[in-house]
């Protein structure tokens, strides 16, 4: 069963997908709008992420990043717009629906129970049982180790209580948990906020491993240095609109900052051929 969850270890380190990858996106949003009373938080936003790709979702405070993530994770469904998973039109009215579709959101602080050990956390809510409803600790520990190794996570022991782990290790456990839930799309909300330099490195490594395992990864981050290190494409939101998409290889941080803040946007568009704007023209 564990074999279905993660691809064989030997198949990893495939070359980066072409930018942007062809074929059907793993997850695609079209014309998503959402209002809170008079405030239009999202206005006709399109979004797509492909398998084996890391997309960075950036924008200033209030740009609509969190609202968009809530739409995808089912916490706050959209007012209008369509969502497709692997080409199939779907509805995501609640978080359970998102889980069923293989969309997992990793929140920084809300994901783990500090008082339980790593294995207990990995299988929380879907424990494996053997006879008489007793927990099958051996099988869970084996599967947990398999997934953690696939992510090249290093921890003192899978029986350590999560409270004793570092921030990076905790983040790794939270991500491994989403993989055990057969995730196809993983949303990481500020995965490196509040982490030290070394731990940030660990998490960025983890994100690369997720890409190598063929998952579609969305990283919401304020930290452009991290974004540049790990993502393939950057999608910029500003005031509830998607104002730009950048291929990371042909973009400078200054261009993205300009898109985030809206400074000299038109001038940038004229000079930067790599930016394929989708909604800025409206």
């Amino acid at each position, binding site marked *: 069963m564990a074999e279905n969850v993660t691809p064989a*270890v*030997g198949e990893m380190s495939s070359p980066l997908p072409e930018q942007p990858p062809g074929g059907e996106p793993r997850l695609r949003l079209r014309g998503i709008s959402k209002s809170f009373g008079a405030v239009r938080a999202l206005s006709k936003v399109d979004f797509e992420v492909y398998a084996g790709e890391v997309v960075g979702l950036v924008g200033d405070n209030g740009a609509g990043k969190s609202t968009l993530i809530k739409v995808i994770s089912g916490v706050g469904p959209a007012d209008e717009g369509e969502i497709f998973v692997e080409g199939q039109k779907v509805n995501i009215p609640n*978080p*359970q629906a998102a*889980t069923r579709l293989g969309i997992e959101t990793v*929140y920084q602080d*809300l*994901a*783990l*129970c*500090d*008082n*339980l050990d790593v294995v*207990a956390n990995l299988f*929380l*809510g*879907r*424990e494996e*049982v053997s006879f008489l*409803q*007793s*927990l099958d*600790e*051996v*099988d869970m*520990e*084996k599967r947990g*180790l*398999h997934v*953690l*190794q696939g992510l*090249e*996570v*290093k*921890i*003192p*022991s*899978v*029986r*350590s209580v999560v*409270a*004793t782990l570092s*921030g*990076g290790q*905790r983040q790794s456990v939270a991500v491994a948990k989403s993989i055990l839930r057969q995730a196809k799309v993983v949303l990481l909300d500020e995965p490196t906020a509040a982490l030290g*330099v*070394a*731990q940030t*490195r*660990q998490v960025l*490594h983890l994100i690369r491993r997720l890409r190598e395992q063929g998952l579609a990864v969305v990283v919401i981050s304020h930290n452009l240095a991290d974004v540049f290190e790990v993502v393939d494409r950057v999608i910029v939101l500003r005031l509830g609109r998607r104002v730009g998409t950048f291929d990371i290889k042909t973009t400078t941080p200054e261009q993205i900052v300009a898109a985030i803040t809206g400074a000299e946007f038109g001038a940038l568009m004229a000079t930067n051929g790599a930016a394929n704007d989708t909604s800025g023209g409206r």
Partner: protein
Amino acid sequence: MSDIIEKNDSPEPTEASKVAAFGGPAAEAAAVEVPAYMPRRTIGQLLRGELGFVPVLVTLLIIVAYFQIVTGGIFLSPENLSNLVGQIAYFGILGLGVIMVLLLGEIDLSLASVAVLCSIIMAALSERAGVPAWLAILVALLAGAVIGFINGFFVAVLRVPSFIVTLAGSIGYAGLLLHLLNGQATLIINNPFILAIAGSAQSFLPNVPGVVLPALAVLLYAAGLVVSYVRRRRAGLRTSSLLWLVARIVIAAALVMGAVAVFYSYQGVPYSTALFFGLIALFWLILTKTPFGRHIYAVGGNAEAARRAGINVVAIRIAAFTLCSTLAAVGGIVLASRGNAVASAVDSTLLLNAIAAAVIGGVSLFGGRGSAWAIVLGVLIIGSIINGLALLNQTVDVSEMVEGVVLLVAVTADALVRRAQARTGR
């Protein structure tokens, strides 16, 4: 710069781990688990963690040694020890119930009222209405379960703080039991079946089960440890050392059979003691070996994470309160049997002793931390203080002052541990 960091925190795959990538689970364990990453811990940190029971145990030993000396050897005599375990069983069972809600970070202040109310329901049915004893006991247990369900409903569904819900319950049920007794101050129990639980000369296990049952429990425990050791070995997972495995079995066997030997040098194993330890073992199994138990710890540790993991938090809370009040009913029945009567007054120390025993034993008031076995150390400490001071002809006033101090120390220790963990946790 990045090279240095990589070496420090996420090492490049070494030859060993590259080989491990294609090996079995044994290699996976080696590749993932890096014991060197375990921060070196001071003795103080260990005492706040898995060795947290040691200070409690030392406290108990000091108390026992003190009373043994000042009573001139009476305290540890088999007769007094049998007497002592008889005194602690009923509030130990109540304490076991309170552990269930403490693990969720909740509290149940209605325990004592519920215990007495249920014992009165049993006594009234059996003595006044002539209902068979087993049916009266069953109805009393059901009444406890229903009360617990109501408590849980208010706490989990209506989100009323458990402190208030159960405080209201405590007052209300005390009134209800007065109503049921109909002005009578005490109701004497004559039913031999009910008296046999803890209140008669026959309240001891017969010789054969008295020895066989504890021995069987130890054997099952040992078998469980060995099977788990062998399975983990076969699966290539890390195991604790063989020496530690043997040590645990030897310690368990020595404790259990030693206790049985002490009981038999007086009158044998009391039913109430067997019931108390049987319930502890049962709830320990439920809490540690089933998904339900794990979900209780999860909800107590981080309710939001548990909810997001798909756990039905409301159902877990209601179930814990239901179990708590049902255990209170069991404790009330044992108490009534021991006293050969039920009284209209709820003993004010009953509730406090039960909660104090759980907290002194190491169950956190903040949820998510503690074991079912914690209650044993807690009731032994409280029971020893009460019993020892009684042997010294001290009155309740002294005993309550000493208990108050011990409880305050235990809760302070819990709060300090929690603060220390919050500091080192992230």
